[in-house]
């Protein structure tokens, strides 16, 4: 099982992803903005990040840029999330490995976790 970081300013969204992945056996940490997300990233060995695009303080594109520029963090797969179509965010988020459009289904979250956390498939 893996460790997942969910960065989203909407409590409800972060809580929902946490509940889904916890049921799947993963450990989930949450942050309400990019800055706090980066702080957590340096404290744990994360296997996957769910990252919201529009947030206060530091938005998703900025946090992704920092991750991409970091020699160790850049290995962590990032799933970008937005209520807008992927085309709207693609230009600024070239480093993400997957995109999840809000609102999402439970299965979408589980499938993405299975795709990027190898142990999920066992």
């Amino acid at each position, binding site marked *: 099982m893996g460790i997942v970081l969910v960065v989203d*300013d*909407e*409590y*409800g*969204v972060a809580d929902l992803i946490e509940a889904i992945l916890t049921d799947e056996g993963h450990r989930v940490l949450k942050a*309400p*903005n990019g800055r706090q997300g980066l702080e957590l990233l340096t404290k744990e060995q994360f296997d996957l990040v769910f990252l919201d*695009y*529009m*947030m*206060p*303080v530091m*938005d998703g594109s900025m946090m992704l840029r920092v991750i991409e520029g970091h020699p160790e963090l850049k290995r962590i797969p990032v799933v970008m999330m937005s*209520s*807008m*179509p992927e085309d*709207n*965010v693609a230009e600024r988020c070239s480093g993400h490995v997957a995109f999840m459009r*809000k*609102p999402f289904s439970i299965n979408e979250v589980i499938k993405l976790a299975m795709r990027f956390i190898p142990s999920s498939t066992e």
Partner: protein
Amino acid sequence: MTDVGVAVLERVQSGVPGLDVILGGGFLKGGLYIIQGPPGTGKTTLGNQICFNHVAHANRAVFVTLLAEYHARMMQHLSVMKFFDASKIPDQLSYLNGLAALHETGLRGFVSLLRKEVTSRRASVLVIDGLVTARRLAPDEQAFNEFIHDLQAVAIAAGCTVFILTSSRSDVIEPEHTMVDGIVELADELAGWAAESSLQVVKFRGSGFLRGRHAYKITSGGVVVHPRIEALLSRPSRPDQGGDGDGRVVSGLEQLDTMLGGGLPEASTTMVMGPSGTGKTTLGLEFLAACTDTTPGLLFGFYETPKRIDAKAAGVCPALRNLIDSAVVEVLWQPPTDDLLDAYGERLLQAVKRRKVKRLFIDGLGAFQSAAAGSGSDRIGMFLTALMNEMRILGVTTVYTLEVPDIMGPSIRTSIGDLSSLAENLILMRFVEAGSQLHRLISILKVRDSQFDQSLHEYETSSQGLIIRPNSESAQAIMLGVPIVAQRERNSGPARTGRRR
């Protein structure tokens, strides 16, 4: 010498149809405004509409939610609105959730966050949805008041117009009501089985505004407000020049002009009353058939569709059909159950101004009355008075029909009080039974500042239109119960006089 008059405050237009008119041009830049109303009245739609209209003009805006509603769900709902433009998100319009910041840092921290976001995103409009959450999380009343005060400081310092959306009730005076620059209240009420929405600007510092309630609808284009016609026209759009209305215009029926003492007074209003089937619409069509290129006409009707009008014109008034084809006369039809009173008034005014209409025929005043059903009994009189005053000022000669319930007999009952303020000229059309025959009689009850023929005249509606007998003898015979005289006269009497061409 420089102008030392009243300073002109910079405005931020909402872009919401009708609202900027009510506000005298828009909200004031850097102001703090509350938009309040019960759930379902369209506060969030209005807030978003303001944001999208703002960014459509190369500006930037931020929408901050303090509610449990997910942005994704809100976007889904907004995506069907015509004002929604996904390409503006997130570069020009950002959606943020402030609940986490509010929980973690309190009201002070939240305001600090707003200031930074507004500054860094160079936003000139900020919408905060869910003031109730901030109030709930405030440690005490003092802290909440300071929060509102701090928001005002952000608005002024950043030159950012701030809108707070909340479900507060207007009958409860909250401290924030006294602190903000303006309050716009949305309400929803039942009128019989139908729901009617109204918007009221309760407070608006630094500017005049149209007071009272104004109807609105939420359409696929967003919120559309219809300023109350009598408030909008409380002062006519231009001063009465006088003189213009001293002349006479033809009614379209030569004999009627004679009865009127030389035609209809120019720029006057004429009410044609009568029960269904007496030929009121035909009289109106004859009136429009006298339109010319320099005196264009408009038929504003509710009950007869353009096709039926066309067919009717072809039958009784072919000249009108040509005028419609050549756009000298426009036919505007609206289903009588379709819209709000002020929406009808707005459409009528726009159509008159657009084509500089000089001859207006409104077929079915009762539809206005039905549309006003939920607005209080005195509303329709004020509405029509304002509308007709404006028509006079615009130099429009207006003829409109009003159906009266009594089919026969001498009594006349109308459902609209104080007719004298609504019509300067009154024409009555009625049925009279005499023997086994049904006869139609027309009479003039009033003409503005003028003498007129006070006698009854018999008339017929035929394939040639409306034919009024030149004298009152046949009518007199009918009223005396000796219609045979009228019949004899009809067979061998003087030539009929019909429409003026």
